Each structure stands twice: as C-alpha cells, then as structure tokens.
C-alpha cells in the first residue's frame, strides 16, 4: 500500500480504530487485537485499516515469529506512523475543543 498522506473521511468506526491505537501509540496491534478493542466486525475493520495504511496513517509488517515453533500463523501488525499519530491526535483534539470533525 502506498503512503500518499491523503485525507481520510472520518467515521465513527474509523475513530474507534484510531482510539484502539491511541491508548499506546507505540504499540503494534494485529487486526484481531484492534477488533477486540474497537468491537468492530471484520468486514468494517479491515477496509478501514487498509484505508488508513494507504493514507499513511499506519504502517504494517508481518510478525517476526516462526509459525512452526510458535504453533500459530504469523500475524500482520499495524502501528501508527508519526504522521498518523499527529493526525489522529488532531482529530481527537478537535472533538475536545468542539470544533467538529475535520474533513
């Protein structure tokens, strides 16, 4: 996914995904972790993750484990980029100051 840093339309579901990451911005989360934290269904969650990744808010990489020794398949881990963190903070700050949702 290319990092084009374009605008992303914010929806309630997107905010819930961002909120799951903002608890610890340095943390890397798998899709299942985000699903657990946000309570979103897979059909909603993964398009949002890919959209935000495409927009440069997230980066993702494969988990560095050996599936055989770990006894489970490797997971895809998502992490907020500095730009994503800044943009997400802006979005949530705008709510705090009652300025509405930015485009």
């Amino acid at each position: 996914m290319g990092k084009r840093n374009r605008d992303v339309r914010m929806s309630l579901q997107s905010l819930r995904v961002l909120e799951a990451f903002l608890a610890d911005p340095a943390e890397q989360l798998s899709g299942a972790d985000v699903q657990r934290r946000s309570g979103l269904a897979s059909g909603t969650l993964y398009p949002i993750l890919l959209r935000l990744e495409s927009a440069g808010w997230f980066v993702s990489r494969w988990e560095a484990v050996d599936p055989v020794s770990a006894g489970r398949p490797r997971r895809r881990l998502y992490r907020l980029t500095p730009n994503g963190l800044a943009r997400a903070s802006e979005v949530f700050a705008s709510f705090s100051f009652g300025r509405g949702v930015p485009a």
Partner: protein
Amino acid sequence: MKGYATVPVLCTAGLSGWIDSVANRIIQSAARGAPGNLSERLEEEWLAAMPEQCGRLGRLSFALGCCWGAMVIRRDHATESVSVTCSATGDRAMTAYAYHATSPLSRSTTVAARDSVLCEINTTPLIDVMLVLLVTLIISLPIMTHAVRLDLRQTPAYKDKNQSEVIDLDIDSDGTIVWNGTPVASTQQLESYLRAEAQKDPQPEIHLRADRRVKYDFVAKVLASAQRSRMKKMGFANTAEFKD
C-alpha cells in the same frame, strides 16, 4: 421401531470441524476476490486472525465479515485506480456510470470516491448474490446428508400379544358346522371346543359364516352354545352376503 440399519444422527464434533472448514474456505474465497496485490496478504492475515475469534459462530461470522470487507476493499481499490486514471488523462467524459448510484456498497470512504466514475461493468452486486447463494448451499447441504451409519441388531418380526387368534366357524346350508375347516359331529362337540377356547387368554375371536340358505334355528343354536361357553368375541363375517 427396531431393526433398521441406518439412523441419521447429527454429529456435533463433525459439525464443528465442518463449520471451521467452511469459514476457512469463505476466507480464502474472499481474499481471492481482493485486489491482486492484497490477495495473499489478506488471506494469510485473516486466516491468522481466525483462531482468535470466539467460538464457531464467531469464526463463521468473522469469515462472512471478511467477504464483505474484501468487496469493500476491492471497491476502494477500483475507485482509487479510476481516480488516478482520470486525473492523469483529464478525460472526464468517459462512457461510464456514476459509481455510487448503482452499487449496494456505495457507502464508500472518501469524498473523491463518490464523485468518481467507473469504466467497467459493476459485478459487485452479482458477486454478492452469488456468495449468499453459495454460502446457503454450503451450509445446508452437509447438514442434510451428514449421517452416522449404525448397524443395529436385527430382530424377528414383532408379534402383538394382544392380537387374538381367529377361529372360522362356518355353518353350511344343510346345518353342518365346520370348525376351522373341520366338520363338527355334534353340538356337544362344538360346545367342548368352545369351552376349551374360552379358557385361553386372550380369548380367540369366532368369525361366524352362516350360509344364507341355512335355517336360523342352526345359527341360533351355535350362538347359544357360544354364550353358554362364555365366548366373548364373536362376529358375523359374511354380513355383506345378506344385503340383497
């Protein structure tokens, strides 16, 4: 009922494995429908997330959600490609249709997506319907056919103990009494037969067939003998002959 060789029994363990297998297949199918560069990644990612879902239904629900997700991702990807193409060529008058007006997935993501056009047949609704039919078929078929074959013990035909023995008592036109095909010499012999049968439990049924030409006197004597012998089950077997 006993003695049947096959009894269909739903096997819970088998059903559980089957649901997981169906969920895996749905995910693989959904990932294959994603844009080419994402297909393998999404399949691996979704299959890895499957074991973390709660319960069989949770996994099935996750897989169906991935189907929806793949369609949305495909749509996002297509919209993005068209936007880039249109921007590059500057050609806004392509023969196309408004994307958001035709697709059930039109609750799209970006503002740019809603204003863009798509220059190909929109197969998303067709695939949507096909997937629903496919999943319905996959879910319903094994439930109907899944059976465990059990070889049960074969037993002889069951005889109802309450079913009474039947004695055919015929009275010929000349007054001859026939007991189960054997002529009876006298009324005394008939009564001895009747007394013996009256002792049985359950008591046998007497089916009385009197010839239509026989005098009523003979019939009345037989009935009286039966009554004296305490026979309780007695009936006229050929009443249809007397209708005309």
